[in-house]
C-alpha cells in the first residue's frame, strides 16, 4: 500500500516499467509456445524478423501502427474527459461509411487535392456523429457511455452489412463491396511517396495516412495541454465538480470529448479505405477499435506513449501473422493469445513489477 505511493524515477516509470511488463508477457508466451512443442527462441526470432526484418515487414508494422495510433488517440481523448469510449470500433466503421459516401459521390468530378481532404473530413464527421449519439444519451439522459458505445458497435456492424449488401454494393458484384474508387481518391502509398524523393522500399500497405496519424498526435497533444478546452476537458475527467465550479458546461464538454474521440477513430477509415482497399468493404475496422483501448492504456494517454504502444501492437500484429505463416502450429488464435497477454500484463497487471523496481531503485533513488 505504502509502496505504490513511492515515486520511481521518471525514466523508470515511462521506459522501464512497460518494458518489464512486456518481458513478463513474453516469458509466459514462451512457456506456452514451448508447451505446444515449438522452440520459443526460434518463434521469437521469427516474430521479430517478421515485424522488423525487411523494409516490407517494417512497412506493414507501420501500417498497422497507423490504425492503432488513431484508435489509441480516440480512447485517450475520451479517457482524459473521464469517459470510457469502448465504441472506437463502430466509430471507425461508420467513419468508413462517411469516407466511402464522400468518395463515391465526388471522385469522378473533383481532383485529388479536394477529394482526399473532403473524404478525411467525412470520415471524421461520421465517426464523430456515431460517437455523438451515446454522448448525448449520457449527457442528457444518463445512460452509461460504456454500455451504449458497446451496443453501438453492434448497431454499426449491422447497419454496414445492410447498406453494403442492399444499397452500396457495386452493380453486378457477388461480394458486398462498393465499386472501386478512382485514382483521384487514393492516398499515395509510402513506397510511391519515398520513390519521389529517391528512396526505394518494398511495396506494402503503408501509406501516407501515417503522416495524418502523426499530425493527429501533435494536434491532440496541443489540444489537451495547450488550449483552454483541453484544460476544461481534463478538469472534467479528474474532477467533474471542479469543472462545474470553473464554469464548464459538462454536457457540452461530454459532447466535445466524444465527438473528438469518434473523429479520431474515423482516421482508421482513411488508412484502410483510401490507403489500401480503394473501395468500401465490410469489416475493415477488424478489432482496431478494441486494441486501441490497450494502446491508450499502455501509452498512459499521452500521444508519445500512444505512438510507442501502437508500434508495439503493430509489430505484434505483423510479426504474429508471419509467425503463423512460418509455423502453422502457431495458429492465428495463438497470435491473439500473445497480444492478449501483452494487454494483460501492460494493462491489468501494469503495477506488478513496480515493487521490484522500487526495491531496485530505492537505494539509488
Amino acid at each position, binding site marked *: 500500500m505504502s509502496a505504490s505511493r513511492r515515486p520511481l524515477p521518471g525514466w523508470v516509470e515511462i521506459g522501464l516499467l512497460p518494458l518489464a511488463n512486456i518481458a513478463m508477457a513474453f516469458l509466459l508466451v514462451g512457456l506456452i509456445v514451448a508447451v505446444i512443442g515449438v522452440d520459443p527462441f526460434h518463434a521469437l526470432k521469427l516474430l521479430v524478423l517478421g515485424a522488423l526484418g525487411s523494409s516490407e515487414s517494417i512497412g506493414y508494422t507501420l501500417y498497422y501502427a497507423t490504425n492503432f495510433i488513431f484508435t489509441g488517440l480516440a480512447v485517450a481523448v475520451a479517457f482524459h474527459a473521464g469517459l470510457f469510449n469502448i465504441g472506437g470500433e463502430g466509430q471507425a466503421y461508420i467513419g468508413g461509411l462517411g469516407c466511402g459516401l464522400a468518395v463515391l459521390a465526388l471522385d469522378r468530378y473533383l481532383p485529388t487535392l479536394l477529394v482526399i481532404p473532403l473524404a478525411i473530413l467525412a470520415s471524421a464527421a461520421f465517426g464523430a456523429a456515431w460517437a455523438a449519439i451515446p454522448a448525448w444519451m449520457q449527457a442528457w439522459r444518463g445512460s452509461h457511455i460504456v454500455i451504449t458505445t458497446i451496443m453501438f458497435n453492434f448497431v454499426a456492424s449491422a447497419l454496414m452489412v445492410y447498406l453494403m449488401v442492399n444499397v452500396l454494393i457495386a452493380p453486378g458484384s457477388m461480394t458486398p463491396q462498393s465499386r472501386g474508387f478512382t485514382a483521384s481518391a487514393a492516398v499515395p502509398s509510402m513506397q510511391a511517396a519515398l520513390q519521389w524523393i529517391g528512396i526505394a522500399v518494398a511495396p506494402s500497405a503503408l501509406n501516407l495516412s501515417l503522416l495524418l496519424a502523426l499530425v493527429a498526435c501533435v494536434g491532440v497533444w496541443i489540444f489537451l495541454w495547450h*488550449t*483552454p478546452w483541453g484544460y476544461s476537458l481534463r*478538469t472534467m475527467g479528474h474532477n467533474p465538480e471542479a469543472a462545474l*465550479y*470553473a464554469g*464548464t458546461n459538462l454536457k457540452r464538454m461530454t459532447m466535445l470529448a466524444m465527438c473528438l474521440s469518434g473523429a479520431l477513430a474515423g482516421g482508421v477509415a482513411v488508412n484502410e479505405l483510401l490507403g489500401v482497399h480503394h473501395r468500401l468493404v465490410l469489416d475493415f475496422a477488424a478489432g482496431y477499435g478494441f486494441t486501441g483501448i490497450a494502446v491508450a492504456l499502455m501509452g498512459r494517454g499521452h500521444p508519445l506513449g500512444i505512438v510507442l504502444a501502437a508500434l508495439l501492437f503493430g509489430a505484434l500484429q505483423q510479426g504474429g501473422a508471419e509467425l503463423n505463416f512460418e509455423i502453422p502450429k502457431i495458429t492465428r488464435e495463438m497470435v491473439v493469445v500473445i497480444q492478449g497477454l501483452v494487454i494483460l500484463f501492460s494493462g491489468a497487471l501494469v503495477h506488478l513489477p513496480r515493487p521490484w523496481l522500487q526495491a531496485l531503485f530505492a537505494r539509488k533513488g
Partner: protein
Amino acid sequence: MQELTADAAIELREIDKSFGSVHAVRGASLRVERGSITGIVGENGAGKSTLMSILYGLHLADAGEILVDGRPVEMASPRDAIGHGIGMVHQHFMLVDSFTVLENLILGAEGGALLAAGLASARGELARLSGEYGLAVDPDARVADLSVGEQQRVEILKVLLRGARILILDEPSAVLTPQETDRLLQILRLLRDRGVTVVLITHKLREILAVTDKVIVMRRGEVVAERRTAETGAEELAELMVGRKVRFDLDKAPARRGETMLAAWHLSLVDGRGVRLLDDISLEVRSGEIVGIAGVSGNGQTELLQVLSGIRPPTGGEMEVCRRKVDAAHPVDPAEMRDLGVAHVPEDRLRQGLVPAFLASETSILGYQDREPFCHNYLMDGPAVGKYCADLMERFDVRPRTPGLRSANFSGGNQQKLILAREMARNPKVLLVGQPTRGVDIGAIEFIRRELIKSRDAGCAVLVVSVELEEILSLADRILVMFGGRIVGEVAAGEADERTLGLMMAGARAA
C-alpha cells in the same frame, strides 16, 4: 495518575520521512503514555498527519523505530497496526452511506460466509461498547440519515470493535458543531478513563486544552516541544507551533457599507425528489462589509453558495448580482458570474476548488483558463501561467513556492491559500467564501482572515459561510443564521454571542 504509571503505549524514535524533495518528518521522537490523551498540534504541513500515518502503517518511514508497549514493531500496513491494537479515525469518514450502522461496523470483519452471525455478534458487541463508552447510536439506522457527529461515533465504534486500545483521531472536530465537539471530547475522556490511549491530532487549541493530558508540538517536521497540558496555555502553544507570536484578535475597523452588490429575494431551491433545500432566502450584501452565515453544516449553506455562485439555478425567487437579474428563467453559469466580478472560494477545496492531479500552476487559473493573460489566440500560455502562479504564491505566502508541484502535494492550508489567492487576485466585486479555514493551521488562519478583511476594506462585498462560530464572530459585520434551509435570524456582530447563535443554529428560536 498517569505520571505514576508512565509506561509508554507508543514510542517513536528518530522517525524520518521524505516525499521526493519534501522532508516531511525529521528525526521525530515521542512517547504516548498508556491510558492518556495526548494531543499533537502543529500547522498544516508540520508533519503530524504524516507521522501518524507512519504509525498506522500507511507510509513507511525512511528511518527510525516504532515501539508498541515497549516492543519494536514493523508497521508495513494498517493491518499490522490493527494487529497491534492501533486504530485510526480519519478526518474524512470511511463509511458506506447506504449501509446501516451495523453493516458498516462489520465491513472488513464480516465473520463468515453468511452475514447473520457476524451481524448478531456485532450487535451484542455494539450494545456493550455503547454502554461502556457512552457511544449511543441506533444500529439499524442508515449512515446517510445520521448527523455528522453520529457518523463519527460510528467510526470510533468501528475502530473499538476491531479491538483497538490505542485510538488515533485526525482532526476529528473539523466537521462538528460546537455542541457536537463538546460531546466528542466527553467521549474521549470516557475512553481514557476506561483505559484507552488516545492520540488527538488537531490544530484547535481549545480542544487540546480542554481534553489532553500532554501536548506535543510539531513544526516543520520536527517535534519542537512537549508540555503537560496543565502547565501551558493557548498563547504559548500557538507561539511554539508558528514559531513566532500570534495575535488572535483581529482589530478591524467598522465596516463602511457601500451599495448593494449581491441581493436575493425569496430564493428557493427544490431538488428532483421535491426536497426543499432552500426556503424563502432573502439577503443582501453591500460592498465594504462581511456578512457571515452561521449554521450547523447541512442546513442549506452548501446549496446557498451553489445558487449564489451560479453553479445551480434557483427554482424560485430572484437575485441580483452586480446589477444582473437572475431567476429560474434567467440563469447564469459560473463563468458568467466571474465576468460579473463574483469570485467564489468553494467549501470543499479538494472536490471543487482544485484538481489534485493538476499542477499548482494549473490550479491557479481554474475557472479563468480561457482569459487573458493565460490564453491568447485559443492557445494557453504556459510560461505566463507559471509566472502568474509564482506571483500568487509570493503574495499569499504559499509554501513550497513551486508552481510545478502537483496540487495534491500541498498541505491543506497552502491549497486553501492558493485558491484564495486565485479568487482574490482579480479584485472581485463580490467574494463568496465557504469554510475559509477548514482544516487550515493557525498561522494560515490568521493570514486568511486578515486577507478577507483587507478585501472588505478595499470595497469588496464579502459573504462568508462557516460552521466555525468563532470564525463568524471574529470576521462578520452582520451574522445570518441558517437552519433547515431558511434564514432564521440576523444579528449585528456587536450584539452576537456564542450562546444565542448556538440556540438559533439548533433551531431553538426562529426570529
